[in-house]
C-alpha cells in the first residue's frame, strides 16, 4: 500500500503505454470543478427546458424559481420544525433499535443454540417491506410519534441484528480462547478481542440502519401524515405550491446527503483500523 511501490511500477508502464490514452483520474480540484459543472448543466438544462416550453406544464417551475424558493423556505419556522421532527424521530428510532440489537445480537452471536433457533427467523423478517406495516401501525397506534418510532424500529432492527450477530461470530475463536486462558477479564476481552473484529460489522450495520431510519421517517410522514419533512412535501403538493414542493424535495435530498456523508465520515474515524467491512450496502 506504500506509495513508493506505486512509483517504481508506474515508470515502465508509462513508457509502455505512451500514446495509448490511459485514463488519468482528475485531481481533487478537478473533481470538484467537474462535479460543479455537472450540477450546473442539469440546472441549466432544467431552466432552458421549462422556459422553452419543452415540458409544457405548470407542474414544473423553472430552476431559478425553485432555487429562489429555497431561501424563502429556510426562513420559515415550519421548515425548521419539520426538519427537527424528522431528524429527532430518526435518531430516537435508531437509538431504540441499537439498544435492542446490540445486547440481543451479542447474546445470539455467542450462543450457538440461540443462533440456530433464531437466525432463520430473523433472516425471514428482514426482507418484509416495512411500508406494508404502516396501515396496521396507523390502525393500532394512530397518527402518533409512537407509530412512527415503532415502524422505524421494526424496519431497522433485523438488518442491524444480523450485522451484530455476524460480527460477533466473526471473532477469532483462537484469540478469544487465548485471552481466556491468560485469565484476561471478560470486560478487557471484549475491548481487546471482540470490538476490533466485530466493530466494523456493527459500524456498517449502524450506518445502514441510520439511513433506513431517515427513509422510514419520511415514508411515515408522507403516507401517515405524521409531522415532518415528508408531511410538508405532501402539503405543498395539495396546496398547489409547486415551487415550495420542489424546494422541499431538494432540501430533503441535501439533508439526506449531509446525513450520509457524516455517517460515512464517522464510520471511517471510529473504525480507523479497517475499511468498511461486511455486507457493503448503500
Amino acid at each position, binding site marked *: 500500500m506504500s506509495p513508493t511501490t506505486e512509483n517504481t511500477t508506474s515508470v515502465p508502464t508509462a513508457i509502455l503505454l505512451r500514446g495509448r490514452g490511459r485514463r488519468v483520474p482528475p485531481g481533487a480540484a478537478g473533481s470538484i470543478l467537474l462535479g460543479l459543472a455537472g450540477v450546473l448543466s442539469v440546472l441549466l438544462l432544467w431552466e432552458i427546458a421549462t422556459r422553452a416550453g419543452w415540458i409544457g406544464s405548470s407542474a414544473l417551475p423553472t430552476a431559478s424559481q425553485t432555487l429562489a424558493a429555497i431561501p424563502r423556505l429556510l426562513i420559515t419556522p415550519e421548515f425548521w420544525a419539520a426538519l427537527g421532527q424528522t431528524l429527532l424521530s430518526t435518531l430516537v428510532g435508531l437509538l431504540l433499535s441499537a439498544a435492542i440489537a446490540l445486547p440481543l445480537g451479542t447474546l445470539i452471536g455467542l450462543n450457538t443454540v440461540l443462533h*440456530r433457533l433464531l437466525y*432463520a427467523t430473523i433472516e425471514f423478517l428482514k*426482507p418484509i417491506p416495512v*411500508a406494508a406495516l404502516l396501515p396496521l401501525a396507523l390502525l393500532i397506534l394512530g397518527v402518533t410519534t409512537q407509530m412512527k418510532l415503532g415502524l422505524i424500529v421494526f424496519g431497522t432492527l433485523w438488518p442491524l441484528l444480523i450485522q451484530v450477530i455476524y460480527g460477533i461470530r466473526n471473532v477469532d475463536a483462537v484469540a478469544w480462547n487465548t485471552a481466556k486462558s491468560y485469565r484476561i477479564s471478560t470486560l478487557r476481552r471484549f475491548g481487546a478481542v471482540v470490538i476490533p473484529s466485530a466493530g466494523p460489522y456493527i459500524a456498517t450495520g449502524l450506518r445502514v440502519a441510520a439511513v433506513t431510519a431517515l427513509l422510514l421517517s*419520511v415514508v411515515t410522514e408522507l403516507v401517515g401524515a405524521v409531522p415532518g*419533512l415528508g408531511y410538508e412535501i405532501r402539503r405543498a*403538493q395539495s396546496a398547489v405550491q409547486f415551487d415550495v414542493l420542489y424546494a422541499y424535495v431538494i432540501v*430533503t435530498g441535501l439533508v439526506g446527503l449531509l446525513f450520509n456523508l457524516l455517517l460515512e465520515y464517522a464510520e471511517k474515524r471510529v473504525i480507523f483500523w479497517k475499511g468498511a467491512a461486511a455486507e457493503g*450496502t*448503500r
Partner: protein
Amino acid sequence: MTRRISQFLIALLLPLALLVWWWFGSASSGAFFFPPLSKILTRFRELFLSPAVMDTLVPSLINLAAGFLLAAVIGVFGGLILGQHPRIQAFFAPLIHFFRSLPGPALLPLFMLLFGLDMQMKVWVIAFTTLFPILLNTIDGVRAREPRWKDVDDVFRISQQRRFWHVTLPGAMPQIMTGLRVGLQTALLMMVVSEMLASTNGVGFLVLQSQQQFRVPDMWAGILMLGLLGLVLNLLFEPIERRVLRWYHATHDPASQ
C-alpha cells in the same frame, strides 16, 4: 446430511411455533384489529388465488419487474461506463450522491405531478430510485479492482476488450450483485409506497384502503402477501447470486481452501 436436516428443522421451529400461536391465539379473538388467522387466510385466498388477483398482485408485480429491470440495465451499463471513465464519473458524482441520499418516496409527489397517476409513472419512479444504489455499487466495483491487475494487463498488453470481459466485469461482479440486492429492496419499498399514495390497484393500495375502510382481514391478507413477496424475492435472489459469484466464493471462502 442428517445434521443439516436437523439444523433446518430447528430453524423452522420458531416460525412454526409463532404460526401455531397466531392460529390458536386468534381463533376466538373478538379484538377488532386482530381477527382470527383463519379469516385472514380465507380473504387471502379470495384476494390472491382468484381472478381478483388481476387487480391486486398482478399490477404490483408488473410495476416492480418493469421498474427494477429498467434500473438494473441502466444502472449496470451506466456504472460500467462511469467506473472506467473517471472524468465522466466526476462530472456526475454530486448528482448521483444527491439522488442516492434523497429518500425515494419524497420524489413521489413530484413524479405524480409530472407523469400523472398512471402505471407508467409508477414504473418510472421505481426505476429512478432503484437506479442509484445499483449505479453506485457498480461504479465502486469497477474502481475497486486491484491495481496490480492493471499492471499485469499493461505489461502483457492485454486488449481493452479482453480486459473488460475477463478482468473488469468479473472483478466488479460481487459489488454489482450487492447493488442489485439493495436495489430490489428499494424497488419493493417504492412499489408499496407508490401504490399507497397514487393508485387504484395493487397490493399497496389494497392494504391502505382496507385500513381506511376498516376491512381489517383484507388489510392483514395484503400485509401477509407483501411479506411473502419480500421473502420470495429474497429466496430467489440468493441462488442467482451464489451461482453468479461461485468463482468468487471459491477463491475467497477460507473454508474451501
